[in-house]
């Protein structure tokens, strides 16, 4: 029986981390050498965590399915990273960042974790600057900030439109330094396919070499999963193509609880799909909404080119519905409104799957030069993808899945419900509640890796002193290896007619339709019938060509898609049970008279953590109650 103990330290909110750091056990330098820690993933959380643990003297093994750690998907983050430095003297503080994050998360995250995140944010910037991350600067040579995502202070640090890239290259450089020093052993092109536990504790992992197909075991005293989010369960998302949930899902099946899977984030300003073979969606910075006006033709039958549609025949629906916030309503409100327009047949573009984002007025007001100054690179990117010039014709935009707040359940120490298995970055559920603020993902990944894991993993290892870790000849390893090999054999032996991509696309359609921005009981129940049917077809009709002992992209995908089926089903189940609208999602049955999201704090102010109970059985729900002692809980309004 699982008991959910978040192990939140006692004391006032601003002293919890400080006192916890003092109370955690230390491992002396000579003993650190005796411990091995496995890191799965090399993104912001993984690279920073692995490097920091290795600096302390632990033996670290890093596994990534990429050819180089530098390719992890953190690299694609554009906007920036928040920190409560208050360099702008505009009233920012640790408490304000904490407050904004809890409120942005729609009161569905843990106060203690979020406060710690806000405290550590300032150290992250120091660390990154010392590594040589070339953040944007003012002419006086000091760091520049911009405002981001609806908050009222400027606390976002950035490096052109490539902040994620520069932060990851910083973390990667510190990781490679440790590789050079021999304290980190790097295993590229290796995919983790199982976590091994012995006596209920982490004992190691089983990985598959993607080039040779060889399945091998690695023993360790602790395993950290820093494997990112599961946005690709929707097939079309802004995530990289290889981003997947397999490592997290295998841990879930070995006993790690999966929390709040239905909390996924939708980004309103992406480029709509151009055809059925669209492989991913491209995000454009939300800052576009600062000057662009969103509209659709009033008449769904109006097929005139946008420039020929007179003002009187246009519906600037956000300005009409939300007069005070207009085009700057939060991500979820803007996304939902766009979906409604498209669902009502008022979508624009060749596939009628977008809404216009028009800069004509801005160009008139500011001049083309100023618009170019502000958005030139985004316009160029849009033009390159769509072959349409946004200076001449309005952009077309549509929401897309962007980030997942849910993930493996962790306690205050970032340890999952399996002792010795830690989870960091987007892979855990801990800090963003039901909705993440812009520029906070990078902050969380690096806080976890640089400043939390080095302490909390050490505390766990201190308890293992003098105990010998089970070797890879232990029956638990043998069984796990067999399971992995058996799965490969099964996929290759089905010899059906359809590719893994086919099934992934079909699954994505179900997920987006029923568990996208708007969810209803009937739709979710429909999905619970559709997914198993598709899964049965997958098991019967999958076609994987080639062998299991050479580079085989379809074989890799098959394993990931199989896990997405199960995760997708759990996501639906979680969404079905949460009969409230919160964060990014509107539950049709829970809205105000004028169609706004309505949270239900009385019944749903908790973390929903699901326990795997065996193949074909529904997971069991455990609840961790959320209490708010430092923040007044309120309903959002943007009218």
């Amino acid at each position, binding site marked *: 029986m699982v008991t959910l103990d978040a192990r939140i330290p006692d004391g006032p909110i601003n002293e919890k981390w400080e006192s916890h750091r003092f109370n955690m056990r230390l491992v002396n330098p000579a003993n650190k050498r005796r411990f091995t820690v496995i890191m799965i993933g090399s993104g912001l959380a993984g690279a920073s965590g692995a490097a920091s643990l290795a600096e302390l003297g632990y033996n670290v093994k890093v596994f990534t399915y990429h050819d180089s750690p530098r390719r992890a998907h953190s690299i694609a983050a554009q906007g920036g990273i928040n920190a409560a430095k208050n360099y702008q003297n505009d009233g920012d503080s640790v408490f304000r960042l904490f407050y904004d994050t809890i409120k942005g998360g729609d009161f569905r995250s843990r106060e203690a974790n979020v406060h710690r995140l806000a405290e550590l944010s300032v150290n992250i910037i*120091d*660390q990154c600057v010392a590594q040589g991350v*070339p953040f944007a600067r003012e002419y006086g*040579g000091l760091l520049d900030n911009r405002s981001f995502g609806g908050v009222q202070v400027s606390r976002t640090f950035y490096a052109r439109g490539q902040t994620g890239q520069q932060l990851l290259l910083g973390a990667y450089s510190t990781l490679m330094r440790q590789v050079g020093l021999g304290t980190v052993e790097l295993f590229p092109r290796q995919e983790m396919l199982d976590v091994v536990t012995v006596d209920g504790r982490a004992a190691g992992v089983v990985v598959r070499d993607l080039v040779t197909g060889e399945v091998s075991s690695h023993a360790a005293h602790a395993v950290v999963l820093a494997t990112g989010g599961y946005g690709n369960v929707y097939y079309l998302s802004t995530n990289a193509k290889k981003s997947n949930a397999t490592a997290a899902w295998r841990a879930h099946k070995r006993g790690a609880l999966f929390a709040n899977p239905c909390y996924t984030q939708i980004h309103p300003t992406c480029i709509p799909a151009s055809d059925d073979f669209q492989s991913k969606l491209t995000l454009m910075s939300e800052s576009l909404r600062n000057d662009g006006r969103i509209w659709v033709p009033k008449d769904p039958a109006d097929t005139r080119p946008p420039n020929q549609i007179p003002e009187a025949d246009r519906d600037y629906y956000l300005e009409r519905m939300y007069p005070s916030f207009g085009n700057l309503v939060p991500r979820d409100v803007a996304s939902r409104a766009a979906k409604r327009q498209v669902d009502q047949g008022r979508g624009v573009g060749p596939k009628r799957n977008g809404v216009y984002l028009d800069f004509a007025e801005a160009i008139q007001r500011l001049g083309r030069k100023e618009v170019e100054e502000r958005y030139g690179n985004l316009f160029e990117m849009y033009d*390159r993808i*769509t072959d349409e010039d946004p200076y001449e014709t309005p952009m077309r935009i549509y929401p897309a899945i962007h980030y997942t707040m849910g993930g493996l359940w962790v306690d205050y120490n970032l340890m999952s419900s399996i002792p010795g298995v830690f989870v960091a970055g987007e892979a855990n559920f801990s800090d963003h509640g039901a909705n993440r603020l812009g520029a906070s993902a990078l902050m969380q990944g690096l806080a976890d890796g640089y400043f939390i894991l080095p302490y909390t993993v050490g505390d766990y290892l201190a308890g293992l002193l003098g105990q010998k870790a089970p070797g890879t000849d232990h029956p638990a390893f043998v069984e796990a290896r067999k399971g992995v090999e058996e799965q490969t054999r099964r996929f290759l032996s089905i010899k059906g007619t359809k590719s893994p991509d086919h099934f992934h696309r079909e699954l994505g359609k179900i997920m987006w339709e029923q568990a996208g921005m708007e969810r209803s009981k009937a739709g979710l129940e429909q999905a619970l019938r559709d997914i198993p049917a598709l899964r049965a077809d997958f098991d019967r009709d999958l076609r994987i060509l080639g062998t299991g002992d050479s580079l085989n*992209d379809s074989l890799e995908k098959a394993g990931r898609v199989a896990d997405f089926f199960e995760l997708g089903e759990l996501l639906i189940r979680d969404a079905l049970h949460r009969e409230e609208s919160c964060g990014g999602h509107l539950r049709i049955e829970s809205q105000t008279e004028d169609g706004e999201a309505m949270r239900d704090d009385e019944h749903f102010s908790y973390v929903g953590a699901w326990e795997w109970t065996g193949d074909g059985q529904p997971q069991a729900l455990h609840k961790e109650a959320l209490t708010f002692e430092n923040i007044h809980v309120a309903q959002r309004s943007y009218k």
Partner: protein
Amino acid sequence: MDLTLKVWRQDGPQARGRFETYPVQGISADMSFLEMLDIVNERLITEGVEPIQFEHDCREGICGSCGVMINGKAHGGHERTATCQLHMRTFKDGDTIVVEPWRAGAFPVIRDLVVNRSALDRIIEVGGFISVNTGSAPEANMLPIPKEVSDAAMDAAECIGCGACVAACPNGAAQLFTSAKLQHLNLLPQGQAERWQRTVAMVEKMEEYFGGCTNHGECQVACPKGISIDFISYMNRDFIKGKSLNRRLGGQGLAK
């Protein structure tokens, strides 16, 4: 549009490679090059032919995973464009497109269009960092850095490590990659302490794997981030200084 694809197929590192010809029909001009390959692969799977293996991930030009020679040019030869950012509208109906893996001695083929670029990581691990342990960093605004300097460092830091510079170089040299990595750090005040040893270590490691630079300049043209070969001159300057001067006794004078 209808196209003919000639693709390099190679079953493994030791296997003999060959070109295979695949007719491709009904491609939309709005598709990306990699989506066109996705479609070809779907059809190959239907026909019982193993799909073409190629590297890709973010598909927005930042991860550096993708990269193939298209009609003999790295990433297809369009300015500041990685393979994933290339759209089919740049081709004409009826075109024949030749697709090959990166061609460089230091990048052995793993399978089909996938090559091993780990030599680039080897260069980084001997010096492509500033040695600062977690927790030991001073307050970020203690050290003002002129905006021009920071911007120049960022120009270098934009490198995505795709390897196009190596593939485009007749000598298979990695000077553009190495110099971008070096100058990102060498330009910044934080990077001064290790500047000379970093330069010597990375250049010498580079020479273990890659060919020599003879100023063809193909790398700069192929680079999807438009990184300038000026950085190579700075690297050469730093290398000579790092090699010829006594670092222990040179002190600040070495930096001038």
